[in-house]
């Protein structure tokens, strides 16, 4: 089962960083060493407010199928359209670079709003 193709209510994106180590000399000068050419540690926080319990269940099922925070996954074309709805820039700006996939940073958080309606928040992290 792919990641649910549902438009989120709120999306927070952190582009991560390249593998850089910084050292400071005694005189204060900074030395930076680049250890790789791929950005990692991207973060995508998604909030789905007031959706039906059946839709919320799709996230829980997907989380279970990816063995929680263990396995990585990519978004289907439909899911990408839904996830980046409202973004008028290029989709690539919010996507991980080649070779970087998503995994769950933590378990989806489900809040019951009223019978049949829930709010769910999902936190993803991009890893090499």
């Amino acid at each position: 089962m792919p990641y649910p193709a549902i438009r989120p209510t709120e999306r927070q994106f952190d582009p991560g960083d390249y593998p850089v180590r910084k050292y400071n000399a005694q005189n204060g000068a900074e030395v930076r060493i680049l250890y790789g050419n791929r950005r990692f540690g991207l973060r995508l926080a998604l909030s789905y407010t007031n959706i039906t319990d059946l839709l919320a269940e799709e996230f829980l099922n997907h989380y279970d199928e990816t063995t929680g925070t263990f396995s990585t996954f990519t978004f289907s074309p439909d899911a990408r359209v839904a996830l980046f709805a409202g973004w008028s820039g290029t989709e690539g700006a919010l996507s991980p670079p080649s070779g970087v996939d998503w995994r769950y940073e933590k378990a989806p958080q489900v809040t019951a709003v009223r019978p049949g309606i829930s709010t769910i928040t999902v936190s993803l992290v991009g890893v090499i």
Partner: protein
Amino acid sequence: MFYSGTQGKMFIDGVRAAKVKSWSFSSNLGLLDTTTLGDTDGTVTPGTRTNTGSCTLLYYADADGSGGSNSASTLINKLLKAGVEGVAPEADEVVLRFEIDDGGVITGPRHVQAKVYLTTVSMTCAVGEIFSADVSFQVNGAFSEVVM
């Protein structure tokens, strides 16, 4: 046919209330926002309903010094209670029924009925005005009967 206060009746726990000046009720639906990214117009889904109302009853006595109770007294005593040391004051639930008696034979009078808790009792004694009780209430759950 139009209706007015002439056809209006109110019942407190099944007993018709006397000297009712007015009653009103309202049913409000809370909406949950379902607007998502990319939408240009807000969308909603039904949330919970809240039913409230109010009424005004004249406070009276059948004769000077006769004491006894009247409809206003019966109603306000569901909320107005003297404190007792060590006992938590507790409001009583009351069944209110509001009718528009249109003489309907088959369906009976148009009415709504519900179990309510009084939320506010307000009484003001002033020169030139008849002593009365303004009562506000909130329905506990949904209306049990609605014929409107």
